[in-house]
């Protein structure tokens, strides 16, 4: 697996991380070693195997369309300093 600075930066920006130069240089060999280990999976044949997205069989769990009380506006906003007039405040778009 070819791991270079460009790929590391691309992954970081997709994940919204801004790695420092030092971190990038540290990560390149580390990720390479780990991904080499991941690549062991190339050796096993799973052509006729279905994926297990959970380790046990789980299916058909739904709930009724019945309204339950929501949080109050005050409770909803109680864990942040970023609020104004009943709204959460978030960073600007542009």
């Amino acid at each position, binding site marked *: 697996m070819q791991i270079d600075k460009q790929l590391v930066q691309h992954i970081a920006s997709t*994940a919204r991380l801004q790695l420092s130069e030092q971190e990038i240089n540290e990560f390149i060999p580390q990720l390479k070693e*780990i991904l080499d280990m991941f690549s062991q*999976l190339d050796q096993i044949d*799973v052509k006729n*195997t*279905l994926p297990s997205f959970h*380790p046990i069989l789980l299916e058909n769990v739904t709930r009724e369309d019945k309204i339950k009380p929501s949080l109050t506006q005050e409770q909803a906003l109680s864990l942040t*300093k*970023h609020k104004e007039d009943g709204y959460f405040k978030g*960073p600007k778009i542009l």
Partner: protein
Amino acid sequence: MAILKGQRYYKLKLSIDNNNYQEIKMITNLHNHIQAVHNQSIDIVEYTAKALEQAKAINKEYNYFTTISEELALSQAQNLKKTPTGRLAGVFLSVKDAICVQGVESTAGSKILKGYKPLFNATVIQRCINEGAIILGKTSQDEFGFGGFAVNTEIVPKNPFNKDRVTGGSSGGSAGITQKADFAHLALGESTGGSIVNPALFCGVYGLCPTYGRVSRYGLLDYGSSLDKIGPMAKTIEDIASLLNIIAGHDDKEATSATQKTEDYTKYLNRPVRKMKIGIIKDLFGDVFGDGVDENITKAIYKKIEQLESEEVICEEVSMPITNKYGIPAYYIIATAEASTNLAKYCGIRYGAADDLKSNYNEYFTKFREANFSKEAKRRIMLGTFTRMAGYRDAYYTKAMKVRTKIIEEYQHLFKKYDALISPVMPMLAPKFSELEKLTPAQHYMADIMTAPPNLAGLPHINVPIGMHNDQALGLMLTTNHFEEGKLIQIGSAIR
């Protein structure tokens, strides 16, 4: 449940301080303690004050807590004094930081969640509180469970037998306080890839990781949602069974909660093991980690196997070639892929830490996440983001899910013949902090070779302490088929 506020709390605190509760002799036996609370032969408020005092003193030396929930504990004790009921009446419960306790800071050991006081209780917490448990505090852990040594966090817990050694992780704080607490105490840990049995081993306590879905995850701060399991940690296997009885069972708030019937796990305690069949995973005693498994571990475990054989348990060596070769990569691919999406929500808007809103959303999120995730969290987010990217997804993420099926099949094949499997928990005994520094991240991950597979397959497993080697605790791991926690208790209680 009302939390004591302001004046009332300080009044209570003053009255406790004036009392000479230091003289109190704590009851360490869970059963006796609960009885004493039920028949009101002890003042649970005073006992709570003393337990808090002890927890603080231990914490000063060992860093087992991120928060000691003094106010909550005292208010619960007050309520309990009035109505002394519940199957855990007055038992002190330490909770891994990743499990939500309403109104108590719950950060999963991460800076990014500083100040997050959940508006709700995790289902397991609610169940324990309903049974009269008193929440002592939130325990230190690797950030979001990212680690096997509890060093990837700001508050690093220290091994109860030697402060230069690690507690193991990620549920290190829960394991450490369980060993050190000198009062009726239980702990909740959480395991994604071994985070219950690993610190249980290093701290010399029992730790049981149940079947995936057996214990509700509602209120657990997610690491890998298809892998995460909450489980009990305690000094005795009796206590493990008692706590499991309370936390196991279906939760209709959670889609991945199992609907299978629960059992009274205490019924399995000391049940005869004659004619039971145990497979010894021989590959895991060999050369799995460079220099191989620490020979003291192998020796100690085989001694216990001999003991079981003397009780007519049939023990045979088995091999798991697929599991032991592919378990680690499949586990780390799935765990990091899921984790990297679970951690996307941490962006400094609705809860937890926050910056000033100066830049646009991309810059804001990026800077905030960069500043507040630890290096290991970043590494795993990077890995997980990569393995689910278009173009790589099938080769890593989807393939790992298929390999998981293969591994489950390999286990199921063995469980047709065997009641349980036996193996070491970790390839090494509790290392010193200084020894860890030499390992690369990949080598860190490889240390999960014994614990990652049963976690990947969602199988219940337990650490059974089997003595000490100098200042290092010894233990063995039992693994059983899905929903056979009972057999873990049965065989675990037969190992002396």
